[in-house]
């Protein structure tokens, strides 16, 4: 069995295990797993945006929020009788429903909105920024400012967005009761279906010409320009796709949790999303899902046991993953390879010394070989830095 078949077998096994999870897990753990799987749709989107496109987005929470609010507006309206207003609008003295709320009465508008609103916003932002060849760090900082502005806007426009508390208190979706255990179970499988579909679609995409050019842009944007390609449309498509997946993820998450608030769309959650992917391995699709599940279960566990410790852990995780495991868990063997080899070499050298001391022989020349190897790696590092 070669490596790729082994990988596929492992991934299929993981999928089967996840599909059977409702049989084994308690209702509480299942609901956690369901919401974390919903989040991993977003993480899969980040794989293409960040891992393959090299575009670091610190504003993914915005697109998550747009998708989530699009569905939440429908859910809110679905629970109302004719002519009634959502509760928070009445509290803040609004007397009629704005038109852009009204259209979300229709389920199809909401479903289209979940995908199209974040996708279009992402595409517009990417077009505005990338067409002027602004990228890299600048783009990351602009998206972060976007996340800040989006969250403050949601909080301040209380009459239309529910303010700090967000939208909550939903009862039914498309005619099904949200509280029904059978619905909860189907929702889990639907979520898993979305994860699997996104996974397969993105894996296919990476194999296409589009995926190859995207990778090439990441590794040398100017070289691609010299070869006659315009990288801008590729980056826009990748970012819009990431935005759409974030929107879907937000909508699924809202269904699982039953509430969406600005606290899930601001600067801090956006950057947490990056950690999920960084922990799993930014280039690996399976890593993105695994990282999301691991970090979120870890967060749930640590922050309930030791609330003060979570931020410390999270900070440490950031530093360690970036410095020690730049390719995340999925790339751990590769990243740690040189270190492990160095340890092995050191052990070998020590054994050699012991032997030579026993034999009374001259000092071994292995040390010199190791030093030469070190020099070789540092030259390689220098070169990669100049890229």
């Amino acid at each position, binding site marked *: 069995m070669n490596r790729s078949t082994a990988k596929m077998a492992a991934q299929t096994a993981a999928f089967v295990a996840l599909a059977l999870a409702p049989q084994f897990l308690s209702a509480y753990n299942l609901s956690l797993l369901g919401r974390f799987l919903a989040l991993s749709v977003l993480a899969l989107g980040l794989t293409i945006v960040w891992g393959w496109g090299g575009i670091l987005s610190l504003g993914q929470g915005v697109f998550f929020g747009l998708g989530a609010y699009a569905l939440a507006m429908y859910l809110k309206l679905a629970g109302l009788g004719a002519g009634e207003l959502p509760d928070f609008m009445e509290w803040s003295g609004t007397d009629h429903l704005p038109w852009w709320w009204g259209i979300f009465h229709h389920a199809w508008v909401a479903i289209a909105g979940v995908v199209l609103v974040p996708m279009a916003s992402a595409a517009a932002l990417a077009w505005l920024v990338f067409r002027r060849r602004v990228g890299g760090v600048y783009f990351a*900082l602009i998206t972060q400012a976007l996340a800040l*502005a989006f969250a403050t806007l949601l909080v301040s426009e209380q009459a239309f967005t529910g303010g700090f508390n967000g939208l909550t208190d939903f009862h039914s979706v498309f005619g099904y009761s949200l509280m029904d255990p059978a619905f909860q179970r189907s929702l889990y499988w639907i979520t898993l279906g979305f994860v699997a579909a996104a996974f397969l679609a993105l894996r296919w995409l990476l194999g296409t010409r589009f995926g190859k050019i995207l990778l090439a842009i990441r590794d040398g*944007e100017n070289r691609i320009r010299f070869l006659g390609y315009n990288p801008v449309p590729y980056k826009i498509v990748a970012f819009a796709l990431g935005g759409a997946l974030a929107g879907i993820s937000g909508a699924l998450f809202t269904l699982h949790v039953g509430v969406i608030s600005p606290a899930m769309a601001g600067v801090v959650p956006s950057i947490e999303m990056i950690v999920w992917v960084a922990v799993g391995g930014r280039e690996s699709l399976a890593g993105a899902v695994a990282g999301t599940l691991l970090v979120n279960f870890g967060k749930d566990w640590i922050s309930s046991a030791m609330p003060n410790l979570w931020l410390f852990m999270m900070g440490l995780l950031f530093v360690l993953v970036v410095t020690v495991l730049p390719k995340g868990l999925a790339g751990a063997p590769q990243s740690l390879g040189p270190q492990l080899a160095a340890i092995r070499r050191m052990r070998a050298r020590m054994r050699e010394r012991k032997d030579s001391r026993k034999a009374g022989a001259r000092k071994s020349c292995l040390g010199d070989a190791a030093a030469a190897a070190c020099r070789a790696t540092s030259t390689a590092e220098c070169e990669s*830095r*100049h890229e």
Partner: protein
Amino acid sequence: MGESAVVAGQLFNGISVASILLLAALGLALSFGVMKVINMAHGEMLMVGGYLSYLTCQAVHGPLAFLAAMGVAFAGACLLGALLEVTVIRFLYGRPLDTLLATWGVSLILQQAARSIFGAIGVEVTAPQWLNGSVAIHRGFLAGVNLPYVRIFIIVTAVVVLGMVALFVARTKWGLLLRAVHQNREMAAALGVNTRWVDLAVFALGTGVAGLAGAALALIAPVTPTVGQSYIVYAFLVVIVGGLGSLTGAALAALVVGVFSAGAQIFMSVSLADVLLLVMVVVFIQFRPRGIIETRSRLLDES
């Protein structure tokens, strides 16, 4: 109080906010320009500076205690910055996006540490006697404008620090080395400049200035564990608008950003002003993608 007085008062507030933004952005512009490092923990250097000045003012009394506090804030943030550079950042040169993530982790740790030590509620630094009071304008079309000494002090501090940093860069030997590394790192290294030391010095200087900004900030607002967060995003916008590693650009951009958001707040809510500011920045880079002051270079791949 006439309308022109409202505008003038808001303009003055904008300039004093701009001064703090400038102090915060100076270090970012320096370390970004010279080392291509994005320091997300820079906001926490403000916070550290604020807490250090609070502690100093608790320990030392007298009219000049606050000046001592500013010195302590500068030195403390400098040391912390140097520590951060030596332990984390030097492993990440050449990977700007990764420095961004790693330093974000550091900022989380520092925030939580501050929360554990000082509590989530802010601490206040009381301004010294000689800063109590204000300049009031009674006559003319600006009648009713009130300019507190504290804010004037902050503006003066920012101008003095900017001047000192500019002198340091333009006139000292270290400044020469810094400019050499900024222009062409490899060539400077080949000519015997110890780039490691230059990087360390630049980074520590930048965080030190941020610490100073924190001390200044403590005069007008309580110091909380998240105080850095609320300034860092704007400081980065200043760096984007100002252009890579340009002191003049950073100063102009800080003024533009500070006055723009203060001015917008006359007409709309704070959050709408935020959104408008961001829109303006995105529109701005359509015309000048490399900032107000472009650093000209023949290098194709920059950051």
